[in-house]
């Protein structure tokens, strides 16, 4: 009897249906809500609906070869709106990107470089692992480096790549160190042993790299004695909450907004002075839309005397993404070349339209993205971009000594 070989695209969709990433893509009824909701859908030749259609029809190579495969920035809007509950963001896009690379299709050059940096150095910035503690140099509070002095701690703080290395983010890391110290918890960091958690690599299709990072990070984390992990990076939160457990690596983890929001009563006595600012908050996608965690960051901002919180028209589950997820941090030039828009440019305009003078964020990528976008939009002078930690640190006199 002759056997009919299933199209490879269909096989891929069937495999996805067997994972715990939502419902099977084969249940797609082609309603198009995903494509219509996607902030970059109009610039994509194959938005999610068409990805499924083409893959199911056996035209997988067409999809894998197309530049629009590298335009998703993992904002989760399509996944949350899909009436069939198909997990397009965590499931379909990474699987297709992985398949593309396995078949030799090349990801955009900047993303390749990032993958190589993460593989070789354990951070996306391509910096030396030995310089990971650079942010803490001459810091006025003690930073316990658990890689050198292992001991039980309440909080193992995963500092993250950008707060460790990137000059704009380093003051945020220093302020958080002072804040943790003020809160009286015992805490430590992994120092030179810390590596990227790999969420962006996974979402960008590099499952093999992600697996390598999970193995390496597990080895390091399993040697430590801690009650919980606290992260500044919502992407690290997402990785540890959702993707590490798939490899049997389960750790209690909190994003810093949740961790601090549970301690409002302890934070109140630390307040030294008001911060006069009209603030609008940008909900990041991993902790916000994906995990419906909208109130903790706002409760922190409302704690600060003098802060007037105003909302953008698109907020909470309808917030517009900054464009930096799913590898998007390194896909701007690709997306623009394909006729897409940098979402950070649109988002900054939305923030400026509220009349706010401060755009508050809680993701390390967003400081750089939005400050750059503010320059592009010409609102640099009247819209400051600040991490919630920076605003808290200012009202508690825990910020950089030379920052006004």
């Amino acid at each position, binding site marked *: 009897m002759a056997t009919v070989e299933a199209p490879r695209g269909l096989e891929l969709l069937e495999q996805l249906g067997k994972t715990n990433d939502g419902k099977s893509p084969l249940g797609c009824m082609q309603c198009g809500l995903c494509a219509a909701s996607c902030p970059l859908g109009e610039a994509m030749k194959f938005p999610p609906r068409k990805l499924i259609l083409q893959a199911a029809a056996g035209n997988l190579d067409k999809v894998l070869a197309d530049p629009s495969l590298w335009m998703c920035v993992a904002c989760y809007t399509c996944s949350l709106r899909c009436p069939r509950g198909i997990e397009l963001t965590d499931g379909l896009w990474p699987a297709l990107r992985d398949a593309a*690379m396995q078949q030799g299709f090349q990801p955009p050059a900047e993303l390749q470089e990032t993958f*190589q940096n993460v593989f070789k150095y354990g951070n996306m910035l391509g910096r030396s692992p*030995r310089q990971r503690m650079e942010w803490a140099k001459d810091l006025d509070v003690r930073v316990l480096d658990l890689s050198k002095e292992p001991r039980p701690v309440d909080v193992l703080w995963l500092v993250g790549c950008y707060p460790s290395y990137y000059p704009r983010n380093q003051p945020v890391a220093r302020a958080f160190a002072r804040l943790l110290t003020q809160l009286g918890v015992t805490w430590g960091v992994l120092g030179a042993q810390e590596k990227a958690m790999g969420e962006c690599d996974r979402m960008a299709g*590099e499952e*093999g*790299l992600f697996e390598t990072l999970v193995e390496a990070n597990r080895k390091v984390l399993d040697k430590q004695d801690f009650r919980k992990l606290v992260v500044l990076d919502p992407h690290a939160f997402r990785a540890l909450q959702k993707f590490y457990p798939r490899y049997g690596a389960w750790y209690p983890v909190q994003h810093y907004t949740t961790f601090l929001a549970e301690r409002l009563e302890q934070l109140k006595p630390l307040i030294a002075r008001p911060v006069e600012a009209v603030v609008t908050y940008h909900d990041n996608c991993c902790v916000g839309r994906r995990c419906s965690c909208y109130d903790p960051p706002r409760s922190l901002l409302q704690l600060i005397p003098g802060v007037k919180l105003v909302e953008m028209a698109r907020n909470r589950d309808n917030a517009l993404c900054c464009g930096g997820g799913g590898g998007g941090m390194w896909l701007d030039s690709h997306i623009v070349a394909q006729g897409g828009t940098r979402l950070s440019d649109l988002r900054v305009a939305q923030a400026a339209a509220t009349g706010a003078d401060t755009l508050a964020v809680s993701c390390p990528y967003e400081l750089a993205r939005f400050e750059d976008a503010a320059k592009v939009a010409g609102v640099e002078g009247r819209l400051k971009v600040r991490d919630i930690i920076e605003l808290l640190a200012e009202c508690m006199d825990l910020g950089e000594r030379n920052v006004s």
Partner: protein
Amino acid sequence: MKITVVVRQIPDLIEPLEIDSSGTAFDLGSASFIVNESDDHALEQAILLKEAGGATVSVVALDFGDIDNTLYTAAAKGADRIIKIALADETPPPPRAAAALYAKAIQPLSPDLVLIGVQAHDELDGGLSPFLAAALGLPYVGVICGVKPGAEQGTISVCKEFPGAVMARLNVKLPVVLGIVGAEQPPRYVPVARVRAAMKTTQFEEQEAATAAVGPAVSICRLYPPASGSHAEMLAGSEDEVAARIAEILAQKGLVK
């Protein structure tokens, strides 16, 4: 066509290099290593030629630094044979002596084409690529930025750079050693899953350590860190003051009247 590619590990300048206590060598124990960029292009060029028409690609390397990762990546990209040469010393010899080690491993392969990066930043006594050609007794063409299959049997078509932004396409008889600046396309990215698969399936052909007597060699008397010369002058003040100071400096240097 049988192609052999030489890939080298060089100190990664992501870390500041330090001079060791002898004062005549870098402290390579505290350095990390990466593949030499133009060797990576040589490998890419070899794989492209293989894809264009049925070549076999052998990769030859000294066992040093992070070479295993580089070699597994080469296998994942499509290299057919991997030959790893053990070192007699802790660090690789300088290019002239290294050329003899590579030649010993390459000669039995009787390649039609040897591809190697045209330079590396650790070449102490001259470029390895022409030394290798001499050690193999083969002709050498350097500064190559693209190789295509030749129009006639037994030839290869190369794009060679000359000074003054002049590029020439030359038909070169095989066998030959080519010093590669760049491949026809940037080195490809292979996903880590494929590198990990290669780690499980690739067998290195390991060669014993050997020493090569190459006559007089360069010896280092003393290494010095680069001395800082004059520092930049930071101009402060109002725009007019800064502009006036710039004009003054340019006049002092005789650049404007």
